[in-house]
């Protein structure tokens, strides 16, 4: 009966059949099931521009270094407020066309940061364009490739009204009398990146991070609140534009070292800028607010780091002060 070693038909037939059955159980059935997932009501479909940007993201194979999945373990909290759920991929992971399948956006390597929530974390248009033209303009230690073929070098006289000029510092342009103009592809890609935000979960979040057993957040120690690490928060949230040494980037992001706003004894302007963002000076890029992203303690810690570093010297801010300002800002919005 079971003479596998003599009957080639039986041997090959059994091996192929067995493999097929197992494949159906472990791949096809779960794939069909999970494909039925519907999007969250808070999610929006891509605009045409964003979808084109996604195509460029796939074309340049950004997935080989950037993941788009927030795992349900606490260390991934850096990359999003909640773990990713199947619905998150409803719009982005559709078949592209006859030739190309649904993109593998989840990724397997995190050589660069996770991009699930990059639209919230890094909302500025200028920043993205500079970073794509040459990542080392904004992040010195970055090893990401430059994408100069998404930009054009134009002479000043040929620049049209509709062209989007990118404020690239001189030393990063080879021909000195030309200016960098973003191509439509670059703009599409940036609009895709800006659209990457975790959708709000309706009601109570059904998914949450598996909590940390370690460091139980240092809670109030005899009334005196211990602030989180301001430098770490600054590095994660601010340094990409304002740089680790607070020097900013001329033409794109203002310097914080020696800034009058930061050294002001009254921290109100500083804290309001952190919360509401800033777009008052045309020579710099737009900054968006962190009201939703950072807590009172975190904002206070960042402000204190900025007020005591790079030669800045101003009195510390308390979370209570931040709280007051948050209430005030809220009242303005109503």
């Amino acid at each position: 009966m079971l003479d596998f070693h003599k009957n080639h038909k039986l041997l090959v037939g059994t091996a192929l059949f067995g493999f097929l059955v197992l494949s159906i159980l472990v791949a096809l059935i779960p794939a069909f099931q999970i494909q039925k997932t519907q999007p969250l009501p808070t999610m929006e479909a891509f605009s045409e521009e964003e979808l084109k940007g996604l195509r460029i993201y796939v074309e340049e194979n950004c997935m080989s270094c950037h993941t788009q999945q927030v795992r349900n373990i606490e260390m991934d909290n850096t990359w999003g407020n909640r773990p990713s759920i199947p619905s998150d991929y409803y719009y982005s992971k559709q078949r592209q066309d006859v030739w190309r399948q649904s993109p593998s956006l989840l990724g397997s390597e995190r050589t660069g940061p996770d991009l699930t929530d990059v639209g919230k974390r890094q909302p500025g248009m200028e920043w993205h364009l500079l970073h794509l033209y040459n990542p080392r303009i904004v992040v010195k230690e970055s090893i990401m490739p430059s994408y100069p073929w998404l930009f054009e070098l134009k002479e000043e006289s040929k620049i049209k009204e509709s062209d989007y000029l990118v404020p690239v510092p001189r030393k990063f342009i080879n021909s000195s009398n030309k200016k960098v103009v973003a191509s439509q592809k670059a703009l599409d890609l940036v609009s895709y990146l800006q659209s990457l935000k975790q959708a709000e979960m309706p009601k109570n979040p059904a998914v949450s991070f598996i909590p940390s057993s370690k460091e139980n957040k240092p809670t109030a120690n005899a009334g005196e609140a211990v602030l989180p690490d301001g430098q770490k928060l600054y590095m994660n949230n601010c340094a990409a534009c304002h740089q680790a040494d607070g020097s900013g980037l001329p033409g794109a992001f203002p310097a914080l070292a020696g800034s009058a706003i930061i050294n002001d004894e009254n921290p109100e302007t500083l804290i309001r800028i952190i919360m509401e963002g800033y777009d008052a000076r045309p020579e710099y890029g737009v900054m968006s607010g962190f009201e939703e992203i950072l807590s009172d303690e975190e904002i206070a810690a960042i402000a204190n780091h900025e007020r005591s570093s790079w030669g800045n010297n101003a009195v510390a801010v308390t979370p209570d002060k931040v709280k007051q300002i948050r209430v005030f800002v809220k009242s303005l919005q109503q």
Partner: protein
Amino acid sequence: MKNIKFYIGLLFLITIFPKEVWAQPTPNPDTANWMTSPGIVGTILLIVIVLVIAIFILTVKASGYFAQLQKSGERSKKNEFNERLLEMDEAEIGTILEKRRKAVSYQLTSSELGSDLEVEDSRGIIAGVTHEPNNPLVDEKKKSPITLDTPLPLKKIITWYIGASVFWLVFGTLIGQYLGMKFVWPEMDSISWLSFGRLRPVHTNAVFWGWASLTMIGLGHFVITRTSNNTLYSYKLAWWAWWLMNASVAIGTLFLMSGINNGGGEYREYIWPVALLFAIGMVITFYNFYQTVAHRKIEEIYISNWYLLGGLGWTIILVVIGYLPMYQDGLGETVIQGYYMHQGVGMWFMTFTLGLIYYYLPSSLNKPIYSYSLGVLAFWTQMLFYTLIGTHHFVFSPLPWWLQTVAIVFSAGMLIPVVAGTTNFLMTMRGSWNEITKSYVLPFFLVGVVFYFVGSAQGSLQAFRFTNFIWHFTDFNVAHSHMTMYGIITFMLWACVYAILPKITGREPRQIFVGMHFWMAFIGLFAYMVSLMVGGSMKGLSWIEGEPFIQSVILMQPFWLWRAIGGTLMFISHLLFAYNFYDMTRGLKKIPKSPDQKNPAPADAGRNRLRTKNEITTN
């Protein structure tokens, strides 16, 4: 004896199951004691095993060298003897000489045992005449004396398959080397066709489908005909498959560089029309192999052919499932991706290569495989366990928790086929350890077998949830994939190529170049692996600590540099391998097409049959 080993293996499995596999959601681990976690301790142990074996090989080689040094010591004893002679008095010497003269003057007629004919080595049995036997640069290796009678068309097919694969190896690893350097100098170029994202799949696909697959299939053609004791079903089909598969890799490479990819899923980056070419090549090869086995001249199907046919058939199913679109929207694609990328490695490269080892290892040692039954056990468990573990690439992802758990459980189960295979190979090698010094093929086999155990077991450990905290998404994965695709598959394939090519072309490579190839590849791989493992672990710990991301990029710099250095050594060794390939095959065209190549002499045919029989008779 065998059973006991199996139960010990099972016991070992059971002891590690409850702790790791059935563990419920674990919180961020306490990283203070990370070094003592079972997964990490296991990995370190495994790497130490490789080191120990490397040292073993080195010691064996070195002891051979010292034996030679000893000989020169004996020479100096002779000198002492001469001096003693000078001190003797005349009379004493006189009597000794007289005795000696008588002894010497006795002469044989010099033809007692033979004839007066002049000595002539008409069959070319004496090989490797050296004029300085005491001072060779490297140890002299055993020649492979048998030239197997292989039909010329088959010789050509095997040579061309391997030849094409050598090209893809050099090309693919040149790209890999360039990519490795980009980690250190990201500004090396800013040409779209050479950017990192586009080139990475060029590297992986060229070495997967170009190098490993083509060599495997080329070597498989020999095994399938030899162990079926018959000629290949169709030479023409083999050539069709050759053209289709090469075309697929060449066109696929151009598409990837120009930015046309299937969606970035690893190892299925070629768009479907390009992958289809490869798939048709696979189907043709499967049909050709299957028919050859169906027309075999012996009753049993040798165990190698189980693996070869299984590997081909499974991979065809796999590619079809991987490319059909009906269930691949949303996370459906991710389920398939985990399944596909893992089975691509497990059902294709690993299965097929195991089949090759079951033939080439015992035939290089000139003895049968240790156990046929272990091979059968490994075959079915390979199918059962390997198929279920793809999702371990997505632990903690939004994929269903049960799917992840199944993957982790069976990853641990993979130890059964791995232990069965390793035991089988090592027991086959047992008793022939001294052959290692004498052969340039066996060191490759030994390293491959050791990595088979180490790389696979380490992979099982890496699937555990704890190790995923530290290693997932880091460069550790890259180290693991090189440890397996390079340490296991590539080393095994080199062993097989060096074992068979000289026998069918009649030309052996220069041994010093084979030795250099071996050591540069091995040391290069070790530098590559260890640097990325250490760096990857530090990266993971930095993430758990919540340090800014850029910190983990900065801390990797020195490790990326070491990786590039290791990669350079590996790449140079491939150039040597390419030269050796050229050296072994350059005479092939000149071989006269003698009639007895098609119809082997009766005596030879008898011997062939006997050998085949020996190989399948096992305990």
